[in-house]
């Protein structure tokens, strides 16, 4: 039965998410917040690896949604609830749906059975691991100066900052989005002139 396989997969996924939380909570003696961060981080990295390695591209898109949800949870624990809300609305609500539609428009029947990776996949993996190690070493070895208490950013302050100090950037982004909408429609609709 396929249902058993799905139940098994759900159990394995639950174990992957809860094990680091229990590890941090019991063995390292961390707080509840630490356990939450550990479990969200594990979920994010697992879903990210699933995005780049899974064979069926529609499942890659769904794993990307899981990755973005975990990232929104990390923004909440970092004390930026407005950014988390924008992440859910923009990334999960708009960009992921756009990508899923593009997958459905460009899928052919034989696509999942073909080779997923290019020939340079092994050097790419080595390069990615080197990047991860370098960033971790650099982040651990740098003195970032005076660290403050990790404070929650009030949405009111954020609104004042966005609409008083950064109004020009806000308007420039709105013009950029308009240009992107027009460009997208132009690029995706051009084929009628050439079809003759």
């Amino acid at each position, binding site marked *: 039965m396929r249902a058993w396989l799905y139940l098994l997969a759900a159990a394995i996924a639950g174990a992957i998410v809860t094990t680091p939380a229990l590890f941090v909570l019991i063995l390292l003696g961390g707080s509840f917040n630490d356990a939450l*961060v550990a479990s969200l981080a594990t979920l994010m990295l697992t879903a990210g690896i699933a*995005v780049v390695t899974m064979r069926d591209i529609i499942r890659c898109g769904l794993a*990307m949604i899981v990755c973005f949800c975990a990232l929104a949870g990390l923004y909440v624990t*970092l004390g*930026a609830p407005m950014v988390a809300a924008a992440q859910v609305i923009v990334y999960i609500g708009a960009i992921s749906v756009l990508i899923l539609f*593009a997958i459905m428009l460009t899928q052919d029947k034989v696509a999942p059975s073909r080779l997923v990776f290019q020939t340079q996949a092994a050097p790419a993996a080595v*390069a990615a691991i080197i990047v991860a190690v370098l*960033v971790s070493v650099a982040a651990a070895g740098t003195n970032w100066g005076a660290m403050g208490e990790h404070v929650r950013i009030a949405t009111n302050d954020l609104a004042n900052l966005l609409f008083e100090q950064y109004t020009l950037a806000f308007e420039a982004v709105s013009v950029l989005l308009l240009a992107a909408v027009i460009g997208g429609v132009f*690029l995706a609709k051009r084929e009628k002139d050439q079809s003759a």
Partner: protein
Amino acid sequence: MGIADQLNTYLTLSGMLFSIGTFGFLARRNAISMLMSIELMLNAVNLSIVAFGAFVPSLQGQGAVIALMVMAVAAAEATVGLAIVIAIFRNRKTPLVDEYDAMRR
């Protein structure tokens, strides 16, 4: 100090997500997979920006503003990128980037 109260945790996490995106961009054959990997990399950068905004006192609030701007630019990038992929797919009937070889022949 727990792992949730250190900047290094979030920076390391961001570096790992960025390297996952790098691997996907370099290794996948499907053009839409490559765009998804670019989204992963943009999100990794956003995570580190928000972490700096939360921990460095002089950046209080600015980090969130920059993150919102990055999200808007990422939305624009996704729109144009997917439109280009769909336009190429109409002509070449394949989403695989190693079969886009018209300029090499």
